[in-house]
């Protein structure tokens, strides 16, 4: 079983996936928060490598990325921090970033550095399977899962494409839109998840716009995992001890576990 697959076990266990931008609000904060997320019930942490032009992100993650870049965060530093964090926590860590920083680093060099830093997978929102063959081949050689995304606009053909090519899980974008906390879960989400479910047995994790335990429990009813990002970044803005962040993650965990009956 790959390390990411273990996040969905035993069968029926619903995964909680947390996103942080590396180096936001500071490098020290990242080193402190990732273990806290793991302790509070996250099954996977996505480490965001900041990019100057995050066109799939809403204002919250745009701001955190900009801030992190101002702090001097580079892909190299993210890899170093991932190396330290993978020693401290037992859960899989995956990178989330855009294609250019990875391409610029060199696909081979990046993937082997990821493997060396204990990274389990990569999510790249501007790399559809149509453009991903090179990175797919290289990441597989390094034992990394390249996780593809699907969106409510995805056709049956594109769902089959992602189902065939994604590794670890499939990231379902809940809405047509950018990242960012939203008031409600879209009404047609269930139909979208069902469409994908009918095509593949891969774990399906839903992200974009999910911020509350109520929303998380609605997602957990229909999917295998819940991804929370912008809300976590918002809470990190405000305080140093991350007490309300830990509380949020524990309550997300609780609401998800109620669904899976654990």
């Amino acid at each position, binding site marked *: 079983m790959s390390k990411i697959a273990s996040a969905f076990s035993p069968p029926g266990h619903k995964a909680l996936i947390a996103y942080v931008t590396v180096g936001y609000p500071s490098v020290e904060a990242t080193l402190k928060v990732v273990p806290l997320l793991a302790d509070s019930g996250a099954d996977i942490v996505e480490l965001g490598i900041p990019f100057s032009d995050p066109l799939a992100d809403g204002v919250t993650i745009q701001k955190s990325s900009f801030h992190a870049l101002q702090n001097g965060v580079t892909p190299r530093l993210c890899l170093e921090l991932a190396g330290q964090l993978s020693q401290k926590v037992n859960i899989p860590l995956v990178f989330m970033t855009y294609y250019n920083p990875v*391409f*610029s680093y060199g696909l081979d060099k990046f993937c082997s550095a990821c493997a060396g830093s204990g990274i389990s997978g990569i999510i790249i929102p501007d790399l*559809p399977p149509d453009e991903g063959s090179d990175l797919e081949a290289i990441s597989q050689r390094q034992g990394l899962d390249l996780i593809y995304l699907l969106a409510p606009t995805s056709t049956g053909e594109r769902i089959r494409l992602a189902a065939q090519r994604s590794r670890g899980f499939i990231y379902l974008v809940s809405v047509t839109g950018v990242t960012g906390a939203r008031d409600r879960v879209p009404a047609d989400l269930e139909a979208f998840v069902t469409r994908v479910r009918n095509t593949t047995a891969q774990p399906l994790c839903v992200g974009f716009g999910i911020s509350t335990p109520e929303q998380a429990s609605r997602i957990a009813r229909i999917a295998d995992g819940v991804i929370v990002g912008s809300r976590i970044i918002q809470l990190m803005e405000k305080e140093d001890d991350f007490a309300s962040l830990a509380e949020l993650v524990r309550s997300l965990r609780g609401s998800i576990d109620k669904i899976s009956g654990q």
Partner: protein
Amino acid sequence: MLPDERGYFGDYGGQFVPETLMPVLDELATAYKEARADKAFWSEFEALSRDYSGRPTPLYLAERLTENCGGARIFLKREDLAHTGAHKINNALGQGLLARRMGKRRIIAETGAGQHGVAAAAVCAKLGLECIVYMGEEDVRRQSLNVFRMRLMGAEVRPVHGGSRTLKDAINEAIRDWVTNPDTYYLLGSVVGPSPYPVMVRDFQSVIGKETRQQILDKSGRLPDYIIACVGGGSNAIGIFYSFLNDKEVNLIGVEAAGRGLSTGEHAAPLMAGTVGVLHGTKSYVLQTKDGQIRETHSISAGLDYPGVGPEHSYLKDSGRATYVAVTDQEALEGFKLLCKTEGIVPALEPAHAIFHAAKMASSLEKEKTIVVNLSGRGDKDMDIVAQALGVKL
């Protein structure tokens, strides 16, 4: 035939966009393929190009400019005389007709100098479509006249506050809008972005080169020795180059913005000083840091102030079919003044880069040689910037 079916010109191009947009790009590519094969679509495009945009634009022998340089004859392709004052109307009209054909009612566009925004606003007004234009806050400030023109034609101009607040950030924001509203039509203004934009914009702009070819043959009985055009994203350059790609005796020269000088790092010349990367959905030369972050750019002309370039230009550079040079802000201002004084034509700051380079080249060439410069736009929009640069208070 380039691009290939995946939208690649050699190693450059592609579709590096969020999944949400992949089906949308498929729909666009299919609709464009159908329109491209439809004679009725082109006859409407041609009729409106004539009656609305004022095509064909003249090819003009700039005699006093030529005399002043004392060498090769310089012809100007007068895109500055097209409706709305620049070549941008060609693409806006073509895509506007395509959007209407696809049944789209809401149009979004990005703009740098404002010329594409104005062209998009005009076409939307004409076709009765809703128009929203994203424009970097910095560009809103330095091109306020164009902002007013867009608003007069009923467009909503949305200033973009992120990043460097210029064209690159306006495109980011337009793409975010598009991801959020996939039923919207994105009227992209240059030969950049994911496939099929580079080919679609090229097709609509290639009218420039088609006309030029006929006009120069009529006027001089042979093809030109040099064609010179400025390159930001590269749509006016591709537009005039395209009809001459197979005429190996015609030298194609693209002029990028060297800003304060290539050595200062403050420029907008990805073909001259960039490396291969992925920006705004396409693989091409890009100005980036060693960590793959897109660099901030500088040019006196907002329309060239962009860190990327169309993938076909990257291909033409590598293949050697076109050559690229760069001209500084100061040199562009000299080109600007030279054309004003010798010909009574006020060019936009973008083609002023091409004028400077053409004038420089002309003086070192024999009188029998001919140069065509694509005068891609007029300079009314740039009065404030030029006055400021020349230390004049208006």
